Protein backbone atom coordinates (compact mmCIF):
# COMPACT_ATOMS: atom_id res chain seq x y z
CA UNK A 1 0.00 0.00 0.00
CA UNK A 2 1.26 3.42 -0.90
CA UNK A 3 -0.43 5.27 1.96
CA UNK A 4 0.93 4.65 5.39
CA UNK A 5 -1.10 5.75 8.37
CA UNK A 6 1.04 7.94 10.54
CA UNK A 7 0.95 6.71 14.09
CA UNK A 8 1.12 9.34 16.83
CA UNK A 9 4.38 9.54 18.74
CA UNK A 10 4.59 6.81 21.37
CA UNK A 11 5.12 9.37 24.11
CA UNK A 12 1.51 10.48 23.70
CA UNK A 13 -0.62 7.47 24.55
CA UNK A 14 -3.66 9.67 25.35
CA UNK A 15 -3.86 10.90 21.75
CA UNK A 16 -3.32 7.41 20.35
CA UNK A 17 -6.02 5.96 22.59
CA UNK A 18 -8.41 8.79 21.71
CA UNK A 19 -7.79 7.99 18.04
CA UNK A 20 -8.73 4.35 18.68
CA UNK A 21 -12.00 5.48 20.29
CA UNK A 22 -12.73 7.84 17.40
CA UNK A 23 -11.97 5.10 14.86
CA UNK A 24 -14.37 2.73 16.62
CA UNK A 25 -17.03 5.42 16.52
CA UNK A 26 -16.34 6.07 12.86
CA UNK A 27 -16.54 2.35 12.08
CA UNK A 28 -19.83 2.03 13.97
CA UNK A 29 -21.33 4.98 12.11
CA UNK A 30 -20.11 3.68 8.77
CA UNK A 31 -21.49 0.23 9.58
CA UNK A 32 -24.92 1.57 10.53
CA UNK A 33 -25.13 3.77 7.46
CA UNK A 34 -23.95 0.96 5.18
CA UNK A 35 -26.40 -1.55 6.64
CA UNK A 36 -29.30 0.91 6.37
CA UNK A 37 -28.40 1.48 2.72
CA UNK A 38 -28.09 -2.23 2.03
CA UNK A 39 -31.51 -2.91 3.59
CA UNK A 40 -33.03 -0.12 1.49
CA UNK A 41 -31.56 -1.75 -1.58
CA UNK A 42 -33.16 -5.06 -0.66
CA UNK A 43 -30.24 -6.91 0.91
CA UNK A 44 -31.19 -9.66 3.36
CA UNK A 45 -29.66 -9.98 6.82
CA UNK A 46 -27.97 -13.17 5.63
CA UNK A 47 -26.26 -11.23 2.84
CA UNK A 48 -25.33 -8.35 5.14
CA UNK A 49 -23.96 -10.79 7.73
CA UNK A 50 -21.91 -12.55 5.08
CA UNK A 51 -20.50 -9.25 3.82
CA UNK A 52 -19.57 -8.20 7.37
CA UNK A 53 -18.15 -11.60 8.25
CA UNK A 54 -20.72 -12.33 10.94
CA UNK A 55 -23.82 -14.52 11.11
CA UNK A 56 -27.17 -13.12 9.96
CA UNK A 57 -28.41 -13.42 13.54
CA UNK A 58 -25.45 -11.48 14.93
CA UNK A 59 -25.85 -8.73 12.31
CA UNK A 60 -29.58 -8.46 12.93
CA UNK A 61 -29.22 -8.46 16.71
CA UNK A 62 -26.58 -5.75 16.69
CA UNK A 63 -27.77 -3.57 13.85
CA UNK A 64 -31.53 -3.94 13.38
CA UNK A 65 -33.30 -0.81 14.49
CA UNK A 66 -35.98 -2.51 16.54
Amino acid at each position, binding site marked *: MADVVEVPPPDDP*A*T*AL*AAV*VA*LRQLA*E*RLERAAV*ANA*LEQGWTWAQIGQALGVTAQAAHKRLARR
Partner: protein
Amino acid sequence: MKLTRTIKDIPTLRTLLEGAEAEARDAGRAEPGAEHLLLAALALPEGSAPRVLAHLDPTVDLARVRAAIAAQHAAALEAVGIEVPGPLAADAPGEADLPVPPTYRADASAREAFRAVTELVRAKPRVPLCGAHVVAAVAGLEHGTTPRALRILGIDREALAAAARAELARLAAAGRDRRSA
Protein backbone atom coordinates in the same frame (compact mmCIF):
# COMPACT_ATOMS: atom_id res chain seq x y z
CA MET B 1 -26.80 -1.25 37.12
CA LYS B 2 -28.39 -1.47 40.55
CA LEU B 3 -29.19 2.19 40.87
CA THR B 4 -32.73 2.28 42.03
CA ARG B 5 -31.93 1.37 45.63
CA THR B 6 -30.15 4.69 46.05
CA ILE B 7 -31.76 6.81 43.38
CA LYS B 8 -35.43 7.24 44.15
CA ASP B 9 -36.22 9.75 41.42
CA ILE B 10 -37.00 7.18 38.75
CA PRO B 11 -38.52 9.60 36.19
CA THR B 12 -35.32 11.71 36.17
CA LEU B 13 -33.19 8.57 36.04
CA ARG B 14 -35.14 7.32 33.04
CA THR B 15 -35.00 10.70 31.28
CA LEU B 16 -31.26 10.78 31.85
CA LEU B 17 -30.51 7.24 30.66
CA GLU B 18 -32.86 7.39 27.70
CA GLY B 19 -31.51 10.84 26.79
CA ALA B 20 -27.97 9.45 26.88
CA GLU B 21 -29.02 6.58 24.61
CA ALA B 22 -30.59 9.03 22.16
CA GLU B 23 -27.40 11.13 22.14
CA ALA B 24 -25.32 8.01 21.54
CA ARG B 25 -27.63 6.92 18.73
CA ASP B 26 -27.44 10.35 17.11
CA ALA B 27 -23.66 10.01 17.19
CA GLY B 28 -23.93 6.56 15.61
CA ARG B 29 -22.90 4.70 18.76
CA ALA B 30 -24.57 1.55 20.03
CA GLU B 31 -24.02 2.35 23.71
CA PRO B 32 -23.82 5.70 25.49
CA GLY B 33 -20.56 6.84 27.04
CA ALA B 34 -19.98 9.35 29.83
CA GLU B 35 -20.06 12.16 27.26
CA HIS B 36 -23.61 11.20 26.26
CA LEU B 37 -24.65 11.17 29.92
CA LEU B 38 -23.28 14.69 30.23
CA LEU B 39 -25.26 15.82 27.17
CA ALA B 40 -28.42 14.21 28.57
CA ALA B 41 -27.80 15.95 31.91
CA LEU B 42 -27.46 19.29 30.14
CA ALA B 43 -30.86 18.70 28.51
CA LEU B 44 -32.71 17.96 31.78
CA PRO B 45 -35.47 20.51 32.31
CA GLU B 46 -34.41 21.32 35.90
CA GLY B 47 -31.39 23.14 34.48
CA SER B 48 -28.75 22.52 37.17
CA ALA B 49 -26.13 21.12 34.74
CA PRO B 50 -26.21 24.12 32.35
CA ARG B 51 -26.08 26.42 35.41
CA VAL B 52 -22.86 24.75 36.55
CA LEU B 53 -21.24 25.13 33.13
CA ALA B 54 -22.46 28.71 32.73
CA HIS B 55 -20.89 29.52 36.09
CA LEU B 56 -17.49 28.70 34.56
CA ASP B 57 -18.17 30.06 31.07
CA PRO B 58 -21.52 31.65 30.14
CA THR B 59 -20.97 30.83 26.45
CA VAL B 60 -20.86 27.06 27.01
CA ASP B 61 -24.19 25.34 26.45
CA LEU B 62 -25.46 21.95 25.29
CA ALA B 63 -24.74 22.69 21.61
CA ARG B 64 -21.16 23.75 22.33
CA VAL B 65 -20.47 20.68 24.43
CA ARG B 66 -21.88 18.48 21.67
CA ALA B 67 -19.69 20.27 19.13
CA ALA B 68 -16.63 19.92 21.36
CA ILE B 69 -17.17 16.14 21.58
CA ALA B 70 -17.35 15.91 17.79
CA ALA B 71 -14.28 18.16 17.47
CA GLN B 72 -12.41 15.94 19.92
CA HIS B 73 -13.10 12.85 17.79
CA ALA B 74 -12.14 14.69 14.61
CA ALA B 75 -8.88 15.92 16.18
CA ALA B 76 -8.07 12.41 17.40
CA LEU B 77 -8.62 10.99 13.91
CA GLU B 78 -6.50 13.74 12.39
CA ALA B 79 -3.69 12.78 14.76
CA VAL B 80 -3.48 9.41 12.99
CA GLY B 81 -3.79 10.94 9.55
CA ILE B 82 -7.49 10.36 8.94
CA GLU B 83 -9.65 13.19 7.74
CA VAL B 84 -13.40 12.75 7.72
CA PRO B 85 -14.88 15.13 5.16
CA GLY B 86 -18.25 15.48 6.86
CA PRO B 87 -20.40 13.78 9.45
CA LEU B 88 -21.39 10.31 8.31
CA ALA B 89 -25.14 9.91 8.35
CA ALA B 90 -26.00 7.85 11.40
CA ASP B 91 -29.37 6.89 10.04
CA ALA B 92 -30.88 6.12 6.70
CA PRO B 93 -33.48 8.67 5.62
CA GLY B 94 -36.78 8.13 7.39
CA GLU B 95 -35.30 5.83 10.02
CA ALA B 96 -34.56 8.54 12.54
CA ASP B 97 -38.21 8.89 13.50
CA LEU B 98 -38.71 5.23 14.32
CA PRO B 99 -39.31 4.76 18.04
CA VAL B 100 -36.41 2.87 19.58
CA PRO B 101 -37.01 1.03 22.84
CA PRO B 102 -34.49 1.90 25.57
CA THR B 103 -31.88 -0.76 26.36
CA TYR B 104 -30.41 0.84 29.54
CA ARG B 105 -26.99 -0.35 28.49
CA ALA B 106 -23.92 1.85 28.73
CA ASP B 107 -20.21 1.65 28.08
CA ALA B 108 -17.64 1.49 30.88
CA SER B 109 -17.10 5.26 31.05
CA ALA B 110 -20.83 5.89 31.49
CA ARG B 111 -21.06 3.14 34.11
CA GLU B 112 -18.11 4.63 36.00
CA ALA B 113 -19.74 8.07 35.88
CA PHE B 114 -23.00 6.61 37.09
CA ARG B 115 -21.31 4.88 40.00
CA ALA B 116 -20.01 8.32 41.01
CA VAL B 117 -23.51 9.80 40.60
CA THR B 118 -24.89 7.09 42.88
CA GLU B 119 -22.19 7.83 45.48
CA LEU B 120 -23.04 11.54 45.40
CA VAL B 121 -26.76 10.87 45.82
CA ARG B 122 -26.05 8.42 48.64
CA ALA B 123 -23.84 10.97 50.42
CA LYS B 124 -26.52 13.69 50.30
CA PRO B 125 -29.89 11.98 49.85
CA ARG B 126 -31.78 15.25 50.40
CA VAL B 127 -30.91 16.46 46.88
CA PRO B 128 -32.79 14.34 44.35
CA LEU B 129 -30.95 13.19 41.24
CA CYS B 130 -30.20 16.17 38.97
CA GLY B 131 -27.85 17.25 36.19
CA ALA B 132 -25.33 18.73 38.65
CA HIS B 133 -24.73 15.21 40.03
CA VAL B 134 -23.77 14.06 36.54
CA VAL B 135 -21.51 17.08 35.97
CA ALA B 136 -19.74 16.44 39.28
CA ALA B 137 -19.35 12.77 38.33
CA VAL B 138 -17.98 13.27 34.81
CA ALA B 139 -15.62 15.99 36.10
CA GLY B 140 -13.94 13.18 38.03
CA LEU B 141 -13.08 11.23 34.87
CA GLU B 142 -9.40 11.68 34.11
CA HIS B 143 -9.15 10.05 30.68
CA GLY B 144 -11.36 9.55 27.67
CA THR B 145 -13.67 11.53 25.44
CA THR B 146 -15.32 13.65 28.14
CA PRO B 147 -12.20 15.19 29.74
CA ARG B 148 -10.70 15.76 26.28
CA ALA B 149 -13.85 17.55 25.11
CA LEU B 150 -13.85 19.65 28.30
CA ARG B 151 -10.25 20.62 27.56
CA ILE B 152 -11.29 21.78 24.07
CA LEU B 153 -13.90 23.99 25.76
CA GLY B 154 -11.22 25.39 28.07
CA ILE B 155 -12.99 24.00 31.12
CA ASP B 156 -10.84 22.90 34.03
CA ARG B 157 -12.07 19.62 35.53
CA GLU B 158 -11.37 20.63 39.13
CA ALA B 159 -13.14 23.97 38.71
CA LEU B 160 -16.05 22.11 37.12
CA ALA B 161 -16.25 19.63 39.99
CA ALA B 162 -16.15 22.51 42.51
CA ALA B 163 -18.91 24.40 40.65
CA ALA B 164 -21.05 21.26 40.53
CA ARG B 165 -20.56 20.66 44.26
CA ALA B 166 -21.49 24.30 44.93
CA GLU B 167 -24.67 23.88 42.89
CA LEU B 168 -25.56 20.71 44.81
CA ALA B 169 -24.97 22.56 48.11
CA ARG B 170 -27.20 25.39 46.87
CA LEU B 171 -29.95 22.90 45.96
CA ALA B 172 -29.61 21.24 49.37
CA ALA B 173 -29.96 24.62 51.09
CA ALA B 174 -32.97 25.52 48.93
CA GLY B 175 -34.54 22.18 49.90
CA ARG B 176 -33.96 22.92 53.59
CA ASP B 177 -35.55 26.37 53.23
CA ARG B 178 -38.59 24.85 51.55
CA ARG B 179 -38.98 22.24 54.26
CA SER B 180 -38.65 24.73 57.11
CA ALA B 181 -41.01 27.25 55.47
